[in-house]
C-alpha cells in the first residue's frame, strides 16, 4: 500500500490508522498468522497499532500480547500465565534509554566502577533474553538511542561518565550478543532517532503525559523498522533489483552519447553520483541480492555502457540483461520466468516515473523506485526494508553464482536435441536423506520462503521444526542437488506423518531453480523406499491451492497417485499404493557421490 511505503507520512498514518486497517483487511490478501508478544518499557499501544498496519501490508496477520506498562522484565523473567499461554511466535522487547536504571553518579567514579555499571545493565537484559529462550522463538530487542542532553557537551561522547558513552558501550554489547545468538535481532532505534532528528524524537512531553519514550510522530518509524525485521524472518524479502540503464546507472543516453559521452566515474559531479550509486547497488550483491538490467536500448549499446572503463557494475554482475525495445513489464515477466522467481520478488529502479508506473500497474506485487537525483534512489532502497537481513546463509552468498550457473545450463540446453540427453549431460548428483541438525535452519527458511512449488504451503517456525526433527512419527527428507555447473544447495524438503501403514504428506516443496531436473522424482523414489523400510503401504498427498502454487496442482497425478477427492476451492487429496512402485528418476544419481557430502 502506497501510504505504508517509505517515505511515508507519519502523521497521516497515525491519524488514519483505522481507515488504513479497514482498507488492508478488505483487499483479500492471503496472510500468514503470527502471534507477537510485545514486552514494553514504555507505552507501546500506538506502536502495536502501527505495527499491525505494516505487517498486514506485508502479508502477516498479527495477534498481539502486550505486557503491562513497564513490566517487560518481570514478564520475561518470572512469566505470567497469560503470557505463557499466548505461546508467541515472536517477542519484541520495546525498551529505550528511558529504561536504563543506573548511570554514573559522580565524576569521582573510577572507570572500573562505570564499567561495572555498564555490565550490570547489560546482564539484566541478558538474564531476560536467556529466560525468554523457553519460548524458542525469535526475539527482537531495541538498542538504546542517543540522549538529547549532554551536560558536558562533546565530552559526553568520550568521557567515561558521559551518558552518550554509557549508551554507546551498552549498544556495542548488544551487537556482540546478537552476533553470537541465532534468533536474536536488534531493532536499531538509535539509527531511527538520528534519522528522525533527536530534537523531534525526544519530545519529552509525550513521556511526561503518556509514558511514550519518543514523540508520537516517531512511532510509525519504530513500527516500520520492526515490521521489516519480522517480514524478513518469515522470508518475505525481495530477491532481485532490476535496473534501468540510461540516467539510472550512468548519466546520459548511451545510444546517443556513445561510450565516451556517458557520465560515470570521477570527471564530473554527475559522474561521481552515478559511480557511487553503482557502488551502493553492488553492496546488495555482496549478501546475495540478484541484479538484473531492464532497459530500452540495443543490447550492443547496453553492453558498451556496462564495459565503460570507469563502470563499477559490469555485465558479469547481472544474472539477466534485458536490453531491447519491448515494454519493460514484458521484459521483467520474462526475466522472472527465466529465473523461476516470482515477479513480486523484484524491485525495479528507473528514473522515468512513467516506466515505474506501467511496471507497477502491470505486475502485481512488484515494487519500483523512482527518483529525481540518483542518490535519492540509494536512500529509498536502503530504507525500503526490501532486503532487510536477518539470516545470512551460505546459500545466500552463493546465490549469484548459482543463477549464473543456471544461465549456463540454459545455454547448454539449446545444444541438445533430446531433453533427457541434456539432463544426463548435467551429471547430477543428489544427497537425499533424513534431516541433520546443521541443515534445520535452512530447511525452516525454505518452508517460509517457497510459494510456487509447495503443495501445502505449511510454514514452520524453528520450534515447530525442532519438534518434527525430534519426533519418530515423521519421515523427513531433505534433498541437495549438485551438477557439473555447481552445487544448488538444499533444494527440496518433504515431511510425512506416519499413521499405521499410511504416510500423510504434510509438506512437499522444492526450490524453483531446479525445476524440470527430475529432482521431484528423485525425492519420491527415496521417499517410497524409506516408506517400504518402515512398513508403510500407502502415501496420501494433499494439494492446498494458493494464488501462487498452481504449477503443482497436478503433481501427484504426474507422480501416479490416484485422485481421492477434489474440493470446490481447488484443493485435492491423492493416494498412492506403493507395493509395485517403479522408480521415476533416471537422470540423477542419489547418495552416490563422495564429493557432495562435504559441503
Amino acid at each position, binding site marked *: 500500500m502506497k501510504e505504508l511505503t517509505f517515505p511515508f507520512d507519519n*502523521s497521516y498514518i*497515525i491519524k488514519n490508522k483505522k481507515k488504513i486497517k479497514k482498507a488492508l483487511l478488505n483487499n483479500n490478501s492471503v496472510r500468514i498468522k503470527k502471534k507477537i508478544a510485545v514486552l514494553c518499557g514504555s507505552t507501546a499501544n500506538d506502536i502495536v497499532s502501527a505495527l499491525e498496519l505494516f505487517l498486514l501490508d506485508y502479508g502477516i496477520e498479527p495477534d498481539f500480547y502486550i505486557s503491562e506498562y513497564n513490566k517487560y522484565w518481570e514478564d520475561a523473567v518470572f512469566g505470567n500465565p497469560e503470557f505463557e499461554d499466548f505461546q508467541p511466535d515472536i517477542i519484541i522487547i520495546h525498551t529505550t534509554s528511558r529504561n536504563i536504571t543506573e548511570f554514573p553518579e559522580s565524576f569521582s567514579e573510577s572507570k572500573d566502577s562505570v564499567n561495572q555499571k555498564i555490565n550490570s545493565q547489560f546482564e539484566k537484559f541478558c538474564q531476560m533474553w536467556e529466560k525468554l529462550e523457553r519460548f524458542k522463538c525469535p526475539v527482537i530487542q531495541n538498542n538504546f538511542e542517543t540522549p538529547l542532553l549532554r551536560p558536558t557537551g562533546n565530552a559526553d561522547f568520550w568521557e567515561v561518565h558521559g551518558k552518550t558513552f554509557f549508551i554507546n558501550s551498552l549498544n556495542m554489547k548488544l551487537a556482540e550478543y546478537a552476533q553470537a545468538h541465532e534468533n536474536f535481532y536488534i531493532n536499531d532505534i538509535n539509527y531511527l532517532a538520528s534519522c528522525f532528528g533527536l530534537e523531534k524524537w525526544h519530545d519529552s*512531553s509525550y513521556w511526561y503525559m503518556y509514558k511514550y519514550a519518543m514523540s508520537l510522530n516517531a512511532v510509525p518509524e519504530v513500527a516500520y523498522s520492526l515490521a521489516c525485521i519480522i517480514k524478513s524472518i518469515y522470508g518475505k524479502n525481495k530477491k532481485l533489483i532490476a535496473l534501468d540503464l540510461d540516467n539510472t546507472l550512468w548519466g546520459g543516453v548511451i545510444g546517443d552519447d556513445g561510450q565516451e559521452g556517458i557520465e560515470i566515474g570521477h570527471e564530473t559531479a554527475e559522474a561521481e553520483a552515478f559511480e557511487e550509486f553503482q557502488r551502493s547497488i553492488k553492496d546488495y550483491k555482496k549478501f546475495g541480492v540478484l541484479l538484473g538490467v531492464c532497459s530500452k536500448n540495443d543490447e550492443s549499446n547496453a553492453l558498451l555502457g556496462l564495459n565503460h572503463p570507469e563502470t563499477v557494475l559490469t555485465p558479469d554482475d547481472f544474472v539477466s540483461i534485458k536490453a531491447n525495445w519491448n515494454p519493460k513489464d514484458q521484459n521483467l515477466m520474462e526475466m522472472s520466468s527465466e529465473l523461476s522467481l516470482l515477479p513480486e520478488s523484484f524491485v525495479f529502479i528507473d528514473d522515468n516515473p512513467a516506466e515505474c508506473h506501467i511496471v507497477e500497474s502491470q505486475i502485481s506485487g512488484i515494487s519500483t523506485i523512482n527518483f529525481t537525483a540518483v542518490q535519492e534512489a540509494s536512500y529509498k532502497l536502503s530504507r525500503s526494508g526490501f532486503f532487510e537481513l536477518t539470516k545470512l546463509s551460505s546459500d545466500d552468498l552463493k546465490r549469484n553464482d548459482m543463477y549464473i550457473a543456471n544461465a549456463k545450463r540454459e545455454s547448454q540446453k539449446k545444444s541438445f536435441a533430446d531433453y533427457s540427453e541434456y539432463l544426463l549431460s548435467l551429471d547430477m548428483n543428489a544427497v537425499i536423506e533424513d534431516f541433520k541438525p546443521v541443515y534445520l535452519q535452512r530447511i525452516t527458511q525454505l518452508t517460509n520462503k517457497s510459494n510456487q512449488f509447495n503443495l501445502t504451503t505449511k510454514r514452520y517456525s524453528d520450534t515447530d521444526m525442532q519438534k518434527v526433527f525430534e519426533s519418530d512419527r515423521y519421515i523427513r527428507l531433505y534433498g541437495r542437488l549438485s551438477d557439473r555447473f555447481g552445487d544448488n544447495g538444499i533444494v527440496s524438503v518433504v515431511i510425512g506423518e506416519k499413521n499405521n501403514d499410511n504416510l500423510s504428506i504434510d509438506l512437499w516443496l522444492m526450490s524453483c531453480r531446479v525445476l524440470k531436473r527430475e529432482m521431484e522424482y528423485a525425492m519420491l523414489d527415496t521417499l517410497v523406499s524409506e516408506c517400504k523400510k518402515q512398513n508403510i503401504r500407502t502415501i496420501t498427498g494433499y494439494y492446498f491451492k494458493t494464488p501462487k502454487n498452481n504449477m503443482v496442482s497436478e503433481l501427484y497425478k504426474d507422480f501416479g497417485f490416484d485422485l481421492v477427492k477434489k474440493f470446490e476451492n481447488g484443493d485435492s487429496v491423492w493416494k498412492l499404493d506403493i507395493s509395485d512402485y517403479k522408480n521415476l528418476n533416471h537422470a540423477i544419481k542419489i547418495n552416490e557421490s563422495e564429493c557432495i557430502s562435504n559441503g
Partner: protein
Amino acid sequence: MDKKNVNERLNKVFRDVFDDDSITVNDSTTSADIEDWDSIEHITLIDAVEHEFKMRFKMKEVSGMKNVGEMISIILERGK
C-alpha cells in the same frame, strides 16, 4: 479563522481519527459521546488536532479539557 471554520476542520479530524463519517461535534461533545474515544485514542486525537492547526496543547490542557468547546477556544487562541 473563526469559530465556524475551526468547528468544521475539527469535525473532519474527528471523522478521520475515529473513521466515522456520522460524527458531528459541538461545544458540549465529550469522550462519553464517541464510542472509540478512550485514553489511547485521545493521544491520537490530540496529535491529529495539533497537526491540523499547527499548534501544541500545553500538558495541563491535554488532561484538563472538559469538552470540545474548550478545545475550540484554545485553538482559536493559538491555532493557525
